[in-house]
């Protein structure tokens, strides 16, 4: 470990953040929110421009002649069937976030929008904004990062590292090696901190589910920490043995449970209302997604400005934080596909699924608010982690569905930590596809420590600020990687013509 400065420095930085957070949680959260506030105020325009640029580049690449280029040698064939490739994409990008925010996010936006507009119009806009956060822009960030890694790994024979395209395109010299090293380091920090946040969110949700299942109240931090310990014990074994396809089975099982739950809610709930909402949301999304990508809410008041920072901007940098992690995963399963196939599959299909997901879970939430006058907005205000369970409690078989969400959330966190420890191990050992158990366990401990910090912060807003702090530098790196890809594609075209 001592012979690998990148691994050492990355472990020290992430370990120091974890230690700081454990000793002085409020101090770290305040520091993160102060720095993120400055960045978001000064650079909001740049972040929105950057993510819109990524969507435009993705569309252009998919439609251009570059779309025919294969991610691999010209005679390489895809390793997985299209159906199982798409299923794995869902599993990678969905994670615990959709379970957590399915109903809670549209209703949170609704609370603010309804102060400015008619309630029924507000519901529609709240759903549109939620779809914007989880839609084409988010998946373009993942897709472009994954595309860069896949192209340089499978077509140009580079290691699967963030630094590899930079060194390949601009030549190997002191400057490019330094920038590459720094990029690998920042990618590691962004992944580790981002995953810590997901662990916390998942643990909060599992705790609320256990509370709801057993009718517990006021268990506070004790139960949360208990769940966290069980989670840590659950991912130690998969880190020490190579479970191979076992992890994919776990992840796909969680995905199947989530998908089954969505269909159940759609059929057991007010189906006509939900389907009507989905179709309307789809139309509004298609009509407004492009222009909304350029909205910075500059001329609105401070409340809207704060909301924009803590939601839209935070989401965009959150996707950037996850981009190297998800990018490596989707690159690995996409060898042999063309750039066009890759971009269409990675961007369009998960976006369509997200629109369905939020249409169903947000739709039943709005039905409760607008048609039944259920006090769900009070739950959104007081305890956002419990919103999903509050909704499920209003449907038949609540014990079964709540248990399903708890199991799915738990499986999503375990599989995410194990996959992230693998990717972090790979990044921090120069692209080694089989990082040692010791390296993976070290990352497992750091991820656990970061998760604990976020849990101790006790606030989802603090979690979001800390993630944004870790992810912000990655805006610059992803754009640099896109330039590397465009240059390499131009070079390939000129070389072949």
């Amino acid at each position, binding site marked *: 470990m001592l012979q690998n400065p990148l691994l050492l420095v990355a472990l020290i930085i992430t370990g120091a953040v974890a230690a700081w957070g454990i000793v002085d949680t409020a101090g770290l959260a305040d520091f993160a929110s102060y720095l993120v506030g400055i960045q978001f105020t000064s650079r909001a325009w740049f972040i929105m421009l950057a993510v819109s640029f990524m969507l435009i580049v993705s569309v252009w690449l998919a439609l251009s002649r570059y779309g025919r280029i294969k991610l691999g040698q010209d005679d390489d064939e895809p390793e997985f069937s299209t159906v199982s490739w798409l299923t794995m994409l869902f599993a990678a990008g969905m994670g615990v976030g959709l379970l957590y925010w399915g109903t809670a996010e549209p209703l949170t936006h609704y609370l603010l929008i309804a102060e400015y507009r008619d309630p029924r119009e507000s519901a529609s806009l709240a759903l549109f904004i939620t779809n914007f956060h989880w839609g084409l822009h988010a998946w373009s960030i993942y897709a472009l990062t994954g595309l860069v890694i896949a192209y340089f790994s499978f077509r140009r024979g580079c290691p699967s590292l963030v630094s590899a395209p930079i060194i390949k395109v*601009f030549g190997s010299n002191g400057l490019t090696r330094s920038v590459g090293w720094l990029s690998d380091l920042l990618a590691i920090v962004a992944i580790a901190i981002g995953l810590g946040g997901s662990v916390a969110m998942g643990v909060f949700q599992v705790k609320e589910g256990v509370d709801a299942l057993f009718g517990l109240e006021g268990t506070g931090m004790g139960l949360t920490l208990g769940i966290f310990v069980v989670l840590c014990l659950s991912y130690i074994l998969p880190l020490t043995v190579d479970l191979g396809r076992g992890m994919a089975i776990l992840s796909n099982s969680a995905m199947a449970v989530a998908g089954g739950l969505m269909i159940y809610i759609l059929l057991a709930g007010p189906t006509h209302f939900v389907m009507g909402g989905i179709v309307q949301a789809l139309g509004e999304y298609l009509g407004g997604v492009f222009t909304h990508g350029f909205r910075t809410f500059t001329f609105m008041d401070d409340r809207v400005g704060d909301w924009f920072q803590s939601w839209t901007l935070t989401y965009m940098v959150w996707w950037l934080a996850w981009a190297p992690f998800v990018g490596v995963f989707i690159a690995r399963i996409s060898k042999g596909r063309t750039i066009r196939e890759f971009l269409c599959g990675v961007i369009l299909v998960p976006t369509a699924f997200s629109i369905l997901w939020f249409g169903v879970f947000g739709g039943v939430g709005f039905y409760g608010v607008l048609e039944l006058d259920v006090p769900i907005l009070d739950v959104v205000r007081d305890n956002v982690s419990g919103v999903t369970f509050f909704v499920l409690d209003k449907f038949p078989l609540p014990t079964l569905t709540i248990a399903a969400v708890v199991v799915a959330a738990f499986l999503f966190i375990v599989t995410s930590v194990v996959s992230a420890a693998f990717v972090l191990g790979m990044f921090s050992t120069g692209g080694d596809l089989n990082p040692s158990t010791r390296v993976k366990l070290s990352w497992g401990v750091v991820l656990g420590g970061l998760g604990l910090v976020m849990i101790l912060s006790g606030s989802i807003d603090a979690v979001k600020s800390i993630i944004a702090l870790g992810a912000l530098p990655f805006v610059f790196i992803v754009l640099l990687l896109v330039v590397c890809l465009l240059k390499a594609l131009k070079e390939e075209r000129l070389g072949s013509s």
Partner: protein
Amino acid sequence: MSNLLDTIMNIEVFAFIGLLVWLYFKPFQTDDGERRDP
């Protein structure tokens, strides 16, 4: 003070965008340092 900080942070972004544009149009360079014009 906050205006100065804001200006500096945005100048960094402008410089970064300029750098990206320059890098995109700059001649290709291979691993061994050889330069090739597009």
